[in-house]
């Protein structure tokens, strides 16, 4: 499956990090965060712009922050804003170590 155009063709500071045209990730969780956001936005039936606008805001408030950290923040805010979860619930679900592989 390929990325929808509205995801893959984002331009500007929110554009997906690429090297030579191909997506690059600094760590595997980044790829996972990308896939979770794309599939969830679709599942919720939301326009991609709901995520994109929060991503742009997260990058703008801390331009030096690594791209996928802003991405994760945007996803969290989207879910909280839509009443799907709360910061408390997320805190309770946060693991302290990586699950066994």
């Amino acid at each position: 499956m390929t990325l929808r155009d509205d995801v893959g063709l984002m331009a500007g500071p929110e554009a997906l990090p690429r090297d030579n045209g191909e997506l690059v990730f600094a760590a595997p969780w980044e790829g996972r965060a990308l896939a979770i956001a794309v599939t969830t936005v679709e599942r919720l039936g939301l326009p991609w712009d709901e995520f994109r606008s929060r991503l742009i805001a997260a990058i703008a408030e801390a331009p030096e922050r690594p791209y996928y950290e802003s991405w994760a923040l945007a996803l969290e805010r989207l879910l909280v804003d839509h009443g799907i979860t709360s910061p408390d619930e997320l805190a309770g679900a946060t693991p302290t170590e990586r699950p066994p592989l």
Partner: protein
Amino acid sequence: MSDHHAPEPLAPVEARVAAIETVLERRGLLDRSLVDAMIEQYEHNLGPMNGARVVARAWLDPAYKRRLLADGTAAIGELGYGGPEGHHVVVVENTPTVHNLVVCTLCSCYPWPLLGLPPTWYKSAPYRSRAVREPRALLAEMGTEIPDDVEIRVWDSSAEARYLVLPERPAGTDGLDEEQLAALVDRDAMIGVARP
């Protein structure tokens, strides 16, 4: 599981993404098969094409192969690949008497720009320890029987050197062009857990 390595530290953001995934699953909002299918795409299709092209070029062009083995980073750069994580790539050549296997015993150093995302097993403690301790048995379990008279060399990747295996060109591929040859090379062959 090996107890020779401390658990990898879990970055706060990585933990938070895991929490998001857990919560979405609770709500029945996460289609894990779709998520996995997307990730598989990055693992298998995006990165390894770069590495496969490097291998195919080396099979076809002896001069390129010499440059690749002498200075992997520079030769790979000739094809336009590189980037921060791809620095200091060392290419090791399989021969009829030597089979090379790549591991990162301490974490999960990996030539991302060439191979995409590392597979889950690459980061697992059993792979990381057994690749060093009993590579022949490990490879056999992964479906790759290395004859006893073939030496197995294990290369431990680090931030300083990321290894890429140059597999042996399969027999009967004389008439193939670069693109056809590249299609024969997959990620596992370039890690050294398979042979094309």
